């Protein structure tokens, strides 16, 4: 048994971690907003500088400050990831519920759809959908949203199917409640924790996949590039020794993804009564 110096129980610790994560994300959004146009301003006199006092992450080949660009890029990556993951999760929720409650045909169709969705390697599917949407940030969001729902759908479906066999549901049915009512009042509340955790854990995947897509050149965002684009641009300068163009944005991405992971796992711990009061 580990001794906890602050004598906080697990629940409190978890909440503090969650709070910490949320503060970090707010800081990113705030920082991006505060920086305003700075990531765009070129300064041809200050090109290609390594990290130093005035430029913590260095400058790029047009003299733009890499710190500003990284923060802004991170914000865009987060936005894209959040938008895509949320869409995906909602799709998964609806499909999972439908599969478990609307009869055998719907169930088989949804399961079949999941299989098809998972039949191709993830990145190939992303490339295909991105191509179909003609690229751009919109294409990336659609591609990521359209490819991440199968796994969560299965989880929700399994959860609800299990629920259906429990006594109180059967009772409800006997008492004459319609399937829609049962879905809304019994299944939904029960499934929400799973949904929330699933959503949070989808974020890092969505963010990383979006970065991968833009790195490959599919989602060149017109206005401000996100991390994948920053990294793709920095590839051209790797051998000339401008290492700061790649290390900083990448690290920022990794840390963000990890933070979401931590957030998701802690929320799961919080919502799961079994591990709550350890």
């Amino acid at each position, binding site marked *: 048994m580990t001794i906890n110096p602050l004598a906080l129980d697990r629940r409190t610790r978890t909440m503090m971690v969650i709070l910490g994560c949320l503060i970090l994300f707010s800081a990113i959004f705030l920082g991006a907003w505060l920086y305003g146009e700075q990531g765009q301003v*070129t300064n*041809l006199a200050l090109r290609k500088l390594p990290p130093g006092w005035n430029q913590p992450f260095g400058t790029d080949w*047009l003299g733009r400050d890499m710190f500003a660009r990284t923060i802004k890029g991170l914000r865009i990556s987060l936005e894209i990831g959040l938008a895509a993951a949320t869409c995906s999760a909602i799709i998964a929720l609806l499909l999972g519920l439908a599969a478990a409650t609307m009869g055998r045909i719907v169930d088989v169709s949804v399961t079949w759809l999941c299989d098809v969705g998972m039949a191709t390697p993830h990145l190939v599917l992303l490339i295909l959908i991105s191509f179909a949407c003609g690229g*751009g940030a919109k294409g990336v969001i659609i591609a990521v949203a359209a490819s991440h729902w199968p796994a969560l759908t299965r989880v929700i479906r399994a959860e609800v199917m299990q629920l259906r066999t429990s006594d109180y549901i059967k009772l409800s049915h006997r008492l004459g409640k319609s399937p829609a009512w049962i879905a809304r009042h019994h299944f939904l509340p029960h499934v929400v924790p799973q949904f929330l955790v699933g959503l949070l854990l989808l974020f890092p995947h969505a963010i990383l996949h979006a970065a991968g897509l833009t790195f490959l*050149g599919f989602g060149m965002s017109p206005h401000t*590039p996100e991390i994948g684009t920053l990294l793709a641009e920095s590839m*051209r300068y*790797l*051998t*000339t020794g401008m290492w700061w163009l790649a290390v900083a944005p990448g690290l920022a991405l990794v840390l963000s993804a990890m933070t979401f992971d931590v957030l998701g796992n802690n929320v799961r711990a919080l919502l799961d009564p079994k591990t709550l009061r350890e």
Partner: protein
Amino acid sequence: MNVRHFLIGVALPLLLVVTSCDRQQKVSADTPKTLTLILGEENTEGFDPTLGWGSYGNPLFQSTLLKRDADLKIVPDLATDWTLDDRQLAWTVKIRTGVVFSDGSPLTARDVVYTFNTAAKAGGVVDLSNLQQAEAIDDSTVILRLKLPDITFIQHLITLGIVPEKLHGPGYGRKPIGSGPYRLVRWDEGQQMIVEANDRYYGSKPSIKRLVFLFSTEDAAIAAAMAGKVDVLGVSSNLAGQKIPGMTLHVVKSVDNRGLMFPMVPDTGRKTPRGLAIGNNVTSDIAIRKAVNYAINRQALVNGVLDGHGRPAFGAVDDLPWDNPEIRFKDNDPEKAKAILEEAGWHDTDGDGIREKGGKKAEFEILYNTKDSLRQGLALAVSDMLRPIGIKAVPRGENWDRIKDELTHSFVVVYGFGGHSPLEMYKLYHSNGPEPMYWNAGFYVNPVVDKYLDQALLAPSFDEAIPLWKKAQWDGKTGLSTPGDASWAWLVNLDHTYFINQCLDVGRSQMEPHGHGWPITANIDQWHWICK
């Protein structure tokens, strides 16, 4: 399977491999037999001239009827004589005898005819739609019949490599037998191409017998050059500032230009048949266009965005034989720009630094292809230069497809052109461009200019067309250039930068067209080693 097994079975051998791997010998300096080049993108489609291989100038494996020398003058290659008939509808070309393909079979007029007729139907990136028919009169005379008179058709005689009729088919691109100075020995797709001198070549035999072309990303190429494994390396200008041991920087002027295209008509709600918006209310005012031209400091653009590797551009065809030197003007003159705007009625009445006229602000967006950092740099820098004169130009990166398919007729766009044929000028400025109009996207119309351009196409010879091309730019009273209608703000001409092994002499390079890399091989049969 435990850690011990892992170490012995996997990690140790790997370690041995890494430390004992053989480093490649520095081939170039010691044994100058093979020339290694990294020039640019791989021609994934293969080396079939009927599909467009070599259309930038010289197909390497095949030979062409005519070619251009270092001064871009047209000189004979396979052809010994070429005449255009009175109605400008038929070229009669006599070809030299005794030419054989690299497999020994003779090259006759039938092969020329086959090549032209096939290229017209092949659906590749070479456009011979004006060719009616090619016919062989005898073994060494060909008649090329055109549908419409067009002096620029001569460009195809300069760039279309001749393929052997008997050996040509769908797989020809991967086994291109031709009569050029070199022949393809081996192609490892995605990696490299091995090429050797063609012993049966009819021209001056190349001094360098073996070439290896490598295809790789830019920084892998530079790393290879640093390691002494490359003799000729094409780099983009922003990477030309470094030092590579054993190599010198070879700078080649080009007509590869970049400029701002202005929508020339006001926005009246009109749309193209495909639904694209036409016109811009700010740039349709000639005062704005001229002011932009005069305010920009082109030399600063060259220094800042191109790292000094370029020269200012004042027109679309700078320094080509059909360039009109009278269109030059003194730029970097913000005072003159302001005067022009003031006189035309653009005043800053509300003190926000942006001029207004008739209720509209002197504001527009400059679009550039997001994938192109050079155009991005130009857009950003130009925007900074226009601020002080009261014009707000906002740079905006857009997906190339969107620019082409939605925005090109109503926004200012950074475009780049530059080729060896004046046909480009015709396409950029003539008013009869059909849909889709990528070329004269600004809807520029000037009947006087149109007349000169039409007359140029109808000229009886290439040289006689030249004064007409010049008049279209400026004839003393009107023209498409800045002294005239200022339909574009041309910004810079790129220099194409190459690193060359200091023991290699590449002769005098032609002024290169748009698209850097392969054009430097135009005179590759004259290259030779100079060290011993």
